[in-house]
């Protein structure tokens, strides 16, 4: 499961952890995050993330 890094603020999306602040369950792949999902630290969209 690939991790993705926010190119704006450096936040790492780890699929093993998910994102409880937006109701994303552990095990959710980055590609399966909804389009409405945003970086929990700085608020930018998925398009600003790159694979680690």
């Amino acid at each position, binding site marked *: 499961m690939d991790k993705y890094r926010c190119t*704006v*603020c*450096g936040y790492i999306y780890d699929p093993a952890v998910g994102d409880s602040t937006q109701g994303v369950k552990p095990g959710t792949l980055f590609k399966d995050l909804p389009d409405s999902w945003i970086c929990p*630290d*700085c608020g930018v969209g998925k398009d600003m993330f790159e694979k680690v």
Partner: protein
Amino acid sequence: MNALEIKKDIYWVGAVDWNVRNFHGHTYTTKRGTTYNAYLIVDDKIALVDTVLSSFSTELIEKIKEIIHPEKIDYVIANHVEADHSGALPEIMKLCPKAKVIGTAKCKEGLYKHYYEDWDFQIVRTHDKLKLGRKTLTFLEAPMLHWPDSMFTYCPEEELLLPNDAFGQHYATSERFDGEVDQSMLMDEATKYYGNILWPLSTLVLKKIEEVQKLNIPIKMIAPSHGVIWRDDPAKIITAYLKWAKNETKLRVVVVYETMWGATEKMARKISQGLIDSGLEVKLFDITQSDRTEVIKEMLDAKGYLIGSSTHNNGMLTTIAGFLEFLKGLKPKNRLASVFGSYGWAGGAIKNIENILKETGIEIIQPGLGIQYLPDEIELKNCDEFGRNFAQRLKEE
């Protein structure tokens, strides 16, 4: 005011803005003004750390001239892109065109998008060092504290941290150090600054403080970009930041409301009486008459929020709506709330407010209290009960 040596060969060369009353547009009221702190480090090489708002460029340049000729500046460290710290950069670079600007990769992009100048720019990353002579500067990237470009500069020889906006206060004073000013006023401004600017970034604040603590670098002085320098008790502000960043709360309630013909205000007062009689500390604000920046400051460590609005056009009133939108952006955690308000025929405000509070992540711990038109004796008693029940629930949590 003149330049001031804060450590051997390190000078405050900033500016005091006594008269600014609104900051970042109208997002922050600065009733005690502010300062823009810039620091000049004189060694074999000369570095200027940050600048000031553009309208204070002359003041900055005059202060630098008290110490050296500005053309001798070798490096301008840009810890942060925002205009209140980079505003004088174009004027400074005209005086020392060969100087190198130093900052993060995001800082380079951001400065270009502000000034469209091709200055000689050196990108630095965490742990990079810049040797000035006897003194060294090391850098620590601090993205989203509070912009993507933010960075801290540290001078190990002087055990001095220059964290730009972190640990700042909007507080204009003739004194430059923490121990020289009224402590309650200082902490009042530091609290307001955290609540209105850094609160939503609390997770990052905690991580960054832990990171700095793990680096095991001694910090004897913290010189932020606004307000006084933490020389006498830097631990005081770090302790406070840890407490705020953990969203630690006190058993206090902030009641914020907006009223049309006074009925919702009657409710707010009676509810507050119930809370006070239950032994809680209460702050009451009619949001249309209050300074929003101050209200947020009061909410930073309050465990309970009671929000009220009359119903207008089947929803809440507009000033409280704007306020709640602002609060939502601050992402408060571990808070409990309830909602009240008067209505005429169909309600709507209570549901509206509950929805935005839920979106904010605030738990609604008791059903909202709506009263038609003006409350009678029994309904006023219900308001008192509403306050008492809320106090009880808060104590139980």
